[in-house]
């Protein structure tokens, strides 16, 4: 299943684990991404809490967790090549998480499209 958040993250989940990344919309809006701060493996995430941030040329944007869970992998390769996020955000996942609970505020692709239109 693929979900989207109001903070412009996308979440691909099989019900047990989830892969979290930036949406194409967010990557485009941020422009040149110069750095990404990721949590450590083993770190606990909580819905609505900051788990890292993304630095673009002009701004720093918090990454807000859409799940309660535990980080099982962080895409540390992005530290060396943050531009990969801008190039292909759908492929450049940020973290993989063991999911305990999903946020109740997730959107489907269609809902996210509508959400974006209203912005």
């Amino acid at each position, binding site marked *: 299943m693929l979900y989207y958040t109001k903070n412009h993250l996308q979440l691909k989940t099989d019900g047990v684990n989830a892969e979290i990344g930036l949406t194409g919309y967010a990557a485009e809006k941020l422009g040149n991404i*110069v*750095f990404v*701060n990721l949590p*450590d493996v083993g770190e606990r995430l909580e819905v609505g809490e*900051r788990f890292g*941030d993304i*630095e673009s*040329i*002009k*701004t*720093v944007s918090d990454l807000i967790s859409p799940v309660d869970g535990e980080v099982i992998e962080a895409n540390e390769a992005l*530290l*060396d090549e943050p531009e990969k996020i801008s190039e292909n955000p759908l492929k450049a996942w940020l973290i993989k998480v063991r999911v305990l609970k999903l946020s109740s505020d997730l959107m489907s692709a269609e809902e996210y499209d509508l959400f974006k239109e209203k912005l």
Partner: protein
Amino acid sequence: MIYDLAILGGGPAGYSAAFETVKFGLSAILFEKKELGGTCLNRGCVPTKFLAHMAELYHLAYNSHNYGIISEKPALDYLAACEKKEKVVSELRSGLEQSMKLKKIEIVDGFAEILDSHHITCDGETYEVRNILIATGSVPAEPFVNGAATSDEILALKSLPKSVKIIGGGIIAVEFAHIFGLLGVKVTIAIRGERILRKWDKEIAVALTQNFKKRGINILTNQTPEQLVEKSFEIILSAVGRKPNLCGVNTSLVETDENGGIVIDNKFRTKTKNIFAAGDVISKSPLLAHTAMEQGKTVARIVSGKEDGMPSTVAECIYTSPEAASVGLTEAEAKEKGIKFVSAKSNMRSNARTLISGADRSFVKLLADRNTRKIIGAQLFCERASDIVDEFVLGINHGFTVEDLLQSSRPHPSFCEAITNVAEALSEKLDEV
């Protein structure tokens, strides 16, 4: 004569205590077996900052074409640099000695030992004293690799090695990596853990790691003991910490912890009421010169009955390029303490002075209590971080809110504009929660 305060050790804790003691009209006698100024002036902060400055100048000269200055590639005369370094150190040392003599602080050149709570002996002479301050500092921990050099020995080198392996990932390790890296030495850092600067905010550790990577400094993580001792380098620097120096200390009069650090109460008293300890020699010392100075002064105030509060929050700095500085709580520490906080970060890409200086990725991060809006911590990784951090130190010590920080119009263009930027970002975030 009975001295009001006898001080063992002429480093930052010792000399600061001496100056403060005489300020209150009491008498002070200070024993130093080597050189006044301690590790900081002779084998630590000052000589390493000289080398860092020199290495940065060399690097700038080497890259001057970036600013349209075309010149021949600079050559390096390391021996000349070392001579200049010694000159600066000795000038500061003699300045310190003169100031002390001017203030009528008695300096005894020799190895002193505490006989009992009221007597000290040095070179066959016995001195009667009312109070004693142990400020004997620290020495580099024993290298666990045969033939490895300590930071003291590295500073005494008269020529540059071609390659150096640095065992350890703390401040001393990264500062030497920075210096040697800029001077063209092939540098490898080897650590047991995952990350350098493990006691620091993770973001600073990651930022410096990335910065080092770009500069060709190799960081080997998760090293086994066998890998750590691997010796295919011209020099191995062991930077695995420092240990308290208990030379001359009568250990029956004080209690020490498992690392040999002297245990003190919140008034810097050891288990013997009139024997105090301050600086690197105390248990769990942060090993900072400015902390030692503050502690030394506090002891003098206690001895003279002018006692005041505990030393204030102090900043820790790393003199790399960019510099790193930290004061108060990090995010991880605030979380652990269960404090509800909000943090904001500002990168320096829109800071004109930073761009002019050609600095790499840099940022300032600020934390405030969610309810009171008072600032509780700041972490910086940017040019002049060791200067900029001072505003945050002052702010934390005086209970400033984020808005208090914003009540200053900072010069433009300046590095410290970053404070305004991050405080504005934090103020906005606090409004949102």
